[in-house]
């Protein structure tokens, strides 16, 4: 019998490096195709998170998120974070990275109030985290944020919705979705977005819930437990609507199971 090859011979590792990817070990190395793989992996991390949807009308901008719990014994992970009275975010990806970013955004918003007595314009807070994220993609030893954000806000120029990605990119949208199976939500939004501008808040939430519902797995439904809505608008400070207060909006949904009481698969009292 041949003796077992000791691991120190390094052949396995060598083959691994050779046949997988030589250009994704750090953030400072380009691939010959002109890509930085680490950034793309970070973008993949966003798709691991449950979906978040954002849309806006002429008067409001709203966020809707699907929350996960790690099991029946745990609570649902919070996915909407208030930044200031006029700004809120929804997250998909690494929650702890989002906490760092939201902390930074809150500081920026407060700084603006302290220094200028002015609510920070939404674009500026988004470009601030964009710059911060870009820095993480250009310094050796760094790692990009593993979280994507939808940012809604209301300032002197009206309601805004932005998407922020770990690459440092950010765009303004009429409507957008990020996270797991967000393509389904995007399809819904693309079909209906022209009617959003003049929609009432109720209509906007209904559209959002429909889009969010499309991201669900086959046997799941949205209910008051696994869903949150964030609203900001004209004369309306940013506010998160969840729990029983959400029922009114879930009742607006047409067709399908609206997930009342203990009918859903994920409901706590079914087991």
């Amino acid at each position, binding site marked *: 019998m041949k003796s077992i090859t000791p691991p120190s011979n390094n052949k396995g590792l060598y083959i691994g490096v050779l046949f997988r990817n030589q250009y994704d070990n750090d953030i400072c190395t380009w691939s010959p195709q002109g890509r930085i793989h680490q950034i793309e992996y970070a973008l993949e991390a966003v798709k691991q998170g449950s979906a978040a949807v954002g849309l806006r009308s002429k008067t409001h901008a709203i966020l809707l998120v699907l929350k996960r719990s790690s099991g029946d014994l745990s609570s649902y992970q919070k996915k909407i974070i*208030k930044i200031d009275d006029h700004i809120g975010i929804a997250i998909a990806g690494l929650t702890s990275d989002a906490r760092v970013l939201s902390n930074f955004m*809150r500081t920026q918003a*407060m700084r603006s109030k*302290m220094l200028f007595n002015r609510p920070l314009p939404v674009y500026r807070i988004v470009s601030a985290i964009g710059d911060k994220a870009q820095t993480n993609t250009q310094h050796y030893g760094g790692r990009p944020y593993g979280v994507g954000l939808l940012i809604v806000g209301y300032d002197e120029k009206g309601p805004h919705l932005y998407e922020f990605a770990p690459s440092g990119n950010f765009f303004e949208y009429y409507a957008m979705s990020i996270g797991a199976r967000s393509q389904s939500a995007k399809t819904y939004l693309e079909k209906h977005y022209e009617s959003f501008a003049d929609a009432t808040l109720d209509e906007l939430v209904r559209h959002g819930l429909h889009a969010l519902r499309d991201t669900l797995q086959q046997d799941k439904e949205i209910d008051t437990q696994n869903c949150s809505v964030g609203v900001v608008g004209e004369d309306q400070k940013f506010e998160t609507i969840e729990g029983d207060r959400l029922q009114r909006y879930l009742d607006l949904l047409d067709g399908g199971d609206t997930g009342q009481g203990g009918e859903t698969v994920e409901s706590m009292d079914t087991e």
Partner: protein
Amino acid sequence: MDMNSFLPIQVPWTPQTATSAPKQAPSFFPYADNAGTVAAISGTDFAVLAADTRQSAGGNYLINTRYQPKMFKLSNGSVFGTSGFYGDATTFLNRINQRLEWYRHAHDKEMSTPALAQLISILLYSRRFFPYYVRVLLGGLDLEGRGVVYGYDSIGSYEACLSRAVGSGGKMIQPFLDNQIERKTQTGILRAPLTLDKTKTIMRDAFTSAAERDIYTGDYVEIFTITAQGVNVEKFDLRKD
């Protein structure tokens, strides 16, 4: 305690100091006294705070403006009032509001008035050796819904009290409140608790009287009433000379 004891010693101008010794430019003095009066009374289930709205360049016999509020409703439903140096007051107010906002972000609820009272003490003490030249009063409801009023010195020592008056007219109003609210110097004491209306009347009379004697108190008085229903503000005229 006399506020001035916390401040660097200033040699007052006299004909002697002006003519004797070679003339030297006085160094920069970082405080001003913008004067004005703030008073507070706590009741069974309410608190009443009042402040005049005149801002003066203290010691200068100048009225800066007839309306610059020195009492503010805080986001948690308490009311904060201060007389003294207005630059310190606005900065101090901003710091309180920032701390309240972080508290709200962290705990998803409003800070209670007694907790805020402690926070204000700490913030004042953080500048123990370069004090905020402010006389602070804080009023609100405690966790049981009773009216509470806290009085401070400028470096952070504080106590809960039934009534307190500070600022340029404080020395005139305090004995009146001692008599009417705390019934300390009354003969034939009536023990019935004060109603909200009676308390507001006492407060208004106190300011009308102080405005008669104190040149730095006047123009308008704003009366803040804090009950379980929220904060209510009323504004009344005072003499404007």
